[in-house]
């Protein structure tokens, strides 16, 4: 249910340049971060205020700092881009309450679907200098990557593993009313 902030009913589509999706995961000692260059999302707000978010991210648009790692992430050991070229989010509910938002939906990665809930914030709607109604959304959640078929790991010589299972996913969306 959409409440406090009045968001006009309609469809809002991401601006590709100003939207991003990223992930962060503990790699031995430090937090490793990567992102996806392409994020496609659409928010639908009904007349009764209920809202949903649908989104896709092409696996091939992953950005990390090493081309070999980039290739590894595309391989069957990780996202398996050939067989599963897209990460998908099928939103069930987007509840906006003032400046905060709660998102619920089904996340599909590598053919594995899991229900996720993400807390976030809302900015806008505002009118941009060109007369478009713009909406900003930001969400963050933590998922267990092994529930989505991303099981790769490497044992460390003195015990433990190279890569954590919990991955923080964050998305920043700038959407325009169509």
């Amino acid at each position, binding site marked *: 249910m959409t409440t406090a902030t009045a968001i006009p009913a309609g469809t809002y589509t991401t601006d590709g340049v100003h939207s991003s999706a990223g992930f962060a995961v503990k790699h031995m000692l430090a937090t490793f971060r990567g992102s996806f260059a392409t994020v496609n999302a659409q928010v639908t707000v009904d007349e009764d205020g209920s809202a949903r978010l649908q989104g896709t991210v092409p696996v091939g648009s992953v950005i990390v700092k090493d081309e*070999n790692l980039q*290739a590894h992430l595309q391989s*069957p050991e990780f996202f398996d881009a*050939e067989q599963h070229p897209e990460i998908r989010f099928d939103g069930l509910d987007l509840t906006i309450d003032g400046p905060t938002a709660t998102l619920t939906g089904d996340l599909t990665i590598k053919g594995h679907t899991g229900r996720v809930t993400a807390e976030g914030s809302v900015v806008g709607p505002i009118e941009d200098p060109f007369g478009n109604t713009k909406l900003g959304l930001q969400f963050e959640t933590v998922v267990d990557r092994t529930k989505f078929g991303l099981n790769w790991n490497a044992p460390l010589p003195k015990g433990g593993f190279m890569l954590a299972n919990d991955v923080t996913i964050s998305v920043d969306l700038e959407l325009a009313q169509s």
Partner: protein
Amino acid sequence: MRVLGISGSLRRDSYNSGLLRAAADLLPPGAELEVFDALKAIPPYDAHADGDLAPAPVHALREAIAAADAVLVATPEYNASVPGVLKNALDWASRPHATNPLRGKPTAVIGTSTGMFGAVWAQADARKILSTIGARVLDRELPVPEAAERFDAGGMLRDTEVEAQLSELLAELGDAVEAREAALARAA
């Protein structure tokens, strides 16, 4: 479907080469197997000698992999792992890492040994190596123990149970090739 067979054994009467010959006869209809037989000619890996300078047998290996729809590795077991010549060949084949010809290639590992375990640890290591290189490695093994009792004097496999398992594995390899072709067609 074109399958490239690579035997990790250089021995003239190798049982693993025999296993590849058996595989050639058990392929799904329309498939053919070509064996890469120049493993001995591949020099020790040297990054300095790679790139445009790569030795001719290395070029031949990379081109043979690139031209194949699938790869079938038959490995013996030396000291609980793959033979050095096989690892060396795969190390050459894996470069450059991001664009190597094994990337995404449906690949299966089989193996036989004269002992009781059928090169099962070598096969596990081979799958790990091939997965790291980026191949799509079938998650199954075919350990054939006591090779001397399963191959005849002419080096032909004489074991219907192993033949049935090998047929199943090759059919699964064929399925992986079809799934890849379908995925690439969807993406095109």
